[in-house]
C-alpha cells in the first residue's frame, strides 16, 4: 500500500519536505513506517527513536497498524505552550 505521511518541525527540516509517499506492505505497523522514513531520509536517523507517529489524529504505538487512507503524521516531541 502507499501511505502519505505529513512531517512537522525539525523532522520536516531534516527531511526537507513536509509530505512523503511511502510504499509499505499491507498491514504495516507504525514502527515499520519509522524504519522506512529513516531509509528514505538518512538525516532523520539521529532523532528516529524520539519521533512520534500519529494516525488519524491519535498517537500511535510501534504496533499500531497503518492503512492506506489513514491520515498519518510523523514529528518530534511537541513544545507548545
Amino acid at each position, binding site marked *: 500500500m502507499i501511505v502519505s505521511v505529513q512531517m512537522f*518541525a*525539525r523532522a520536516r527540516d531534516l527531511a526537507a519536505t513536509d509530505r512523503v509517499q511511502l510504499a509499505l506492505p499491507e498491514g504495516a505497523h507504525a514502527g515499520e513506517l519509522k524504519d522506512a522514513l529513516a531509509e528514505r531520509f538518512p538525516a532523520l536517523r539521529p532523532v528516529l527513536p*524520539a519521533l512520534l507517529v500519529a494516525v488519524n489524529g491519535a498517537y500511535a504505538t510501534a504496533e499500531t497498524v497503518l492503512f492506506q487512507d489513514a491520515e498519518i503524521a510523523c514529528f518530534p516531541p511537541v513544545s*507548545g505552550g
Partner: protein
Amino acid sequence: MIRLTHDPIDPAGLTQLVRSPAAGAVVLFLGTVREMTAGRQTAFLEYDAYPAMAEAQLAALDAEARARWPIVEAAIVHRLGRLDLGEISVAVVVSTPHRDQAFDAARFLIDRLKQVVPIWKKEHFSDGRTEWVHPGLPAEEQPPRSGADAERSDTL
C-alpha cells in the same frame, strides 16, 4: 472553547467568556514569550502546529477536564506564527464553583497541552541562530551564520 489562531490572544475577552454566577472562581493561565532562556536571549518565537490533530487533542483535554472537575466554562487558545517578546502564546481559563477546582483544572490543561498537543516552538535567538524546541532531543547542530555571530554568542 478551543481555538488555534494567528491573531493576538485577548485574555480579557476569554476571562469574560467563562465568568458566571454559577462559578465562585476563575483561573486564567497565560504563557508569554520570555526574553531569556538558560542565559540565551530570544529575539522572537515561531509556533507551528499540526492543526487538525492539535484541535482534536485540545478537545479531548477539554472533555477530560470537564469529566474530572465541575467546570462551568473553559477556554483554551493557542497562537501560531511569529510572536514577539512578551506576547501571549497560550491562554487557558477555567471557571468552577470553588477555587481548588479552578487551579487544578487550569494546571492540568496547560500541563497536558505541553505534553500531547502537536504544536512546536522555534526559537529565534538574538545571535541569529534558530532552533526547534523538542524536549528530550539534543539541540540542533547548526553552524554559526558568521564568525562575528559565533564570537558574540560565545560571550553570552
